[in-house]
């Protein structure tokens, strides 16, 4: 598709662009959409898209083939959506290139044995309107469930991810058709800058990067700060293991972040914005850079935006992927070309930030929320969520759940709803043991507390944090000592190393936890561990250090008995810690199929085909490959 270049200087022109967008969003021909975010690509979406293009071209089918961002159903990637005009949009899951000709051949009827669900309409929180795909022509397709009925989507409210999986991230027109840049027009032409700040304050929006600082208060501080120029920064340095909310938004709807930043710039009197994103997100970098160029060509960035006197430019700064650079002062140092080490605050970036000037740093999600608040008003926004935590939060729901997914739920939704309903519970009949929130800075919340509402205060009280939105579900196969060890390993590498307490403290904690996991720990070690944890949290400078002990403290708080089992009984109850387990073959159940033999990395399995196999303990590396390969449950772990 050749991109039309628009010069959007007024609302009328924006509407004209939106009309083009509507025509490509909801065309009068059959449209095939492939979810082409990083998650989709990793699962093979590129091959699927290629095959779709090939088939369409070869058979000269009059279909439109388009890319979209993350649809949010990660466990079913690659996802392919087909829209036949006048019918609901049908989603196909785990599509392989081989299935593509079949799916296309069946059109306009849906190939239901491969289809997952139908989308009868999509809600747009920005405009408050809903697009009805089927135009009233019956919402059902051969009894497929609709998105509105699916437990995965039923409880979700997509504000930040309003366009993800709906529009083509490379299309400014489609973004405009979904109400995009209308909030910017409203802010520029119908509101004073101070009014925008007031509106954001009144909305109760809190920073989505993790700490939950009220965004309005931060904006007011930057607005009041003396000094010019002022800067706005988008923090897209997402680094929590298992978290990809920011990536999803940048890849699926980059213009929402740009629009939020321009509005922020107008409200704060800033004319320059920087998006700090890690180089490890190549697709996000590519999409956001393309979107910025597109906005520049269309007069949405630059001088006299939408005909107003507001000028604003955005540049992209790529980070090298240091976890600590998500901390705002380290992030600023990194943009300036210095070593990414946190600085003491005050002075806060609001007074002295980038290049020593007042700077407003907000997370991707926060920026993407801003246009909705401006468009729908603070009263609408603050009606969602709990008393002190307003709006919605995006989570990457991963780990031991049936539906791994990128989800967005109103604040106050309970963990149980998220894990059991949206996530579909733990597969294989296992039980939830704990939910880890907030990444390495967060903690593990035990299954008994699943009724905890997800909001900043409740999670803090439980010894965890909201964090940026990683949510890892753990089942009874998870050893909590091992989990603590994993996060400490991450933290000791990612600590910038400036504070002695954090650098050496995390290393020593890791050593002690490793010792315990190897069955060499003593009960005194737990005291030392608690002392260390306290010291690291108390004396370190930045958020990384002060929250680094959380994985240890929360597991010690809720799963102390597991630590004690490792120490007193020298056993790992979850049978994870290698030093404390052994693999054997049950002579009764083993039928000598030999499936395990070739997989054994230590060549420890000996025996005769169709008879009995045994594991030679001295050679066993405890990799667990035999356990996974055995179809007869003959491999035992002790």
């Amino acid at each position: 598709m050749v991109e039309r270049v628009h010069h959007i200087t007024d609302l009328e022109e924006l509407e004209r662009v939106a009309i083009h967008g509507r025509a490509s969003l909801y065309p009068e021909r059959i449209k095939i959409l492939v979810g082409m975010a990083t998650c989709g690509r990793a699962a093979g979406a590129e091959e699927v898209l290629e095959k779709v293009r090939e088939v369409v071209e070869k058979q000269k089918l009059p279909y439109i083939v388009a890319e979209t961002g993350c649809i949010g159903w990660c466990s079913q990637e690659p996802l392919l959506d087909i829209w036949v005009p006048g019918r609901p949009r049908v989603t196909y899951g785990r599509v392989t290139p081989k299935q593509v000709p079949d799916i296309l051949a069946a059109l306009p009827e849906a190939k239901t044995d491969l289809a997952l669900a139908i989308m009868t309409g999509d809600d747009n929180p920005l405009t408050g309107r809903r697009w009805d795909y089927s135009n009233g022509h019956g919402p059902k397709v051969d009894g497929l469930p609709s998105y509105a009925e699916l437990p995965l989507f039923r409880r979700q409210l997509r504000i930040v991810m309003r366009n993800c999986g709906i529009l083509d991230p490379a299309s400014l027109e489609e973004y405009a058709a979904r109400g995009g840049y209308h909030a910017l027009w409203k802010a520029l032409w119908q509101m004073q800058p101070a009014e925008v700040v007031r509106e954001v304050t009144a909305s109760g929006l809190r920073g989505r990067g993790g700490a939950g600082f009220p965004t309005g208060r931060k904006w007011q501080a930057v607005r009041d700060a003396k000094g010019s120029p002022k800067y706005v920064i988008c923090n897209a340095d997402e680094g929590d293991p298992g978290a990809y909310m920011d990536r999803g938004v940048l890849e699926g709807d980059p213009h929402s972040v740009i629009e939020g930043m321009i509005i922020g710039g107008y409200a704060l009197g800033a004319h320059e914005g920087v998006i700090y994103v890690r180089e490890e997100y190549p697709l996000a970098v590519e999409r956001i850079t393309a979107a910025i160029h597109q906005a520049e060509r269309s007069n949405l960035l630059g001088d006299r935006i939408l005909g107003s006197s507001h000028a604003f430019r955005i540049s992209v700064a790529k980070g090298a992927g240091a976890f600590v650079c998500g901390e705002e002062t380290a992030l600023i140092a990194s943009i300036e070309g210095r070593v990414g080490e946190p600085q003491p605050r005050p002075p806060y970036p609001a007074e002295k930030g980038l290049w020593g000037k007042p700077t407003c740093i907000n997370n991707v999600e926060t920026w993407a929320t801003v246009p909705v608040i401006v468009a729908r008003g603070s009263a609408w926004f603050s009606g969602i969520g709990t008393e002190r935590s307003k709006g919605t939060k995006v989570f990457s729901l991963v780990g031991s759940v049936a539906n791994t997914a990128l989800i967005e739920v109103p604040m106050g939704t309970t963990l149980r709803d998220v894990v059991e309903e949206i996530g579909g519970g733990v597969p294989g009949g296992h039980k939830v043991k704990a939910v880890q929130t907030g990444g390495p800075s967060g903690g593990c919340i035990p299954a008994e507390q699943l009724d905890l509402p997800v909001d900043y205060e409740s999670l803090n009280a439980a010894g965890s944090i909201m964090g940026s939105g990683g949510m890892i579900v753990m089942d009874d196969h998870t050893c909590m000592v091992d989990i603590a060890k994993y996060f400490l390993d991450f933290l000791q590498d990612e600590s910038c190393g400036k504070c002695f307490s954090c650098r050496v403290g995390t290393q020593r904690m890791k050593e002690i936890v490793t010792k315990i996991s190897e069955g060499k720990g003593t009960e005194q070690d737990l005291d030392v561990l608690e002392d260390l944890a306290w010291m690291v949290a108390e004396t370190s400078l930045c958020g990384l250090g002060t929250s680094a002990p959380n994985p240890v403290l929360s597991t010690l708080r809720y799963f102390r008995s597991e630590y004690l089992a490792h120490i007193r009984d020298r056993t790992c109850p979850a049978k994870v810690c290698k030093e404390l387990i052994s693999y054997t073959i049950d002579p009764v159940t083993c039928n000598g199929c030999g499936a395990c033999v070739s997989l054994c990395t230590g060549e420890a399995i000996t025996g005769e085909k169709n008879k009995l196999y045994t594991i030679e303990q001295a050679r066993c590396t405890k990799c667990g490959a035999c356990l996974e390969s055995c179809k007869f449950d003959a491999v035992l772990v002790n």
Partner: protein
Amino acid sequence: MVRLTINGSPVQVDEGYTVLEAARMYGIPIPTLCHADGLTPYGACRLCVVEVGAAPRSKLVASCTTRATEGLVVRTNSARVEHARRLLLELYVATSPQSKRIQDLASAHGVQECRYEAKHEDCIQCGLCVRICNEQMIAGAIGFAGRGTTRHVSRPFDRTSDVCRQCGACLYVCPVCELRCQAGTADTALCNGCLNFSPPCFNSYDDAMCFLDPCHACELAGPFRADARTKIRATATAR
């Protein structure tokens, strides 16, 4: 003038003073390892933590990087502060068991035992050498490289560059290099019975950290030179 309270006593200092400077001006001791007058405060050693604010929202901050502000309430010796310092010092002793500075501080704060395995990492990454090289010697010949477990003081491409004038300032400020305890083993590291200054020597300290090439103290060769050991041997043979 800025008025603040330190340990219950009202004090007055000029604008721009840090809490550490204010306390020291009034003779209130605060231990430090990474602070030196004339160098930019860095806040790495965390030993200078003090408690600021009113309970229950009081917190520990590094006094060397915290500005003295009007009305600030500071406690330099609360139980919380002392406990944190003791735990820090215990960790310091384990990291650098042979530093006399660290041993003295540890014993002054009542650290009687070290529950960690001694590591002899020696360098505590206080950054004094980096700062004195950069700020006073205006050389910038050394800096930090890496992060987390791999962070260390280093030279560009691990080679002594032309900007290094071999002045020895780094050695001079190093709290670990100076006055090394000669006891030699971890068991005796807390004996406090250090001998007087004697140059650090390769034979007992493989990981000596000075950047001088050749080393001014022992006048052989810098430890970072690959040929250092050969040189030592050659010298010994020549003798």
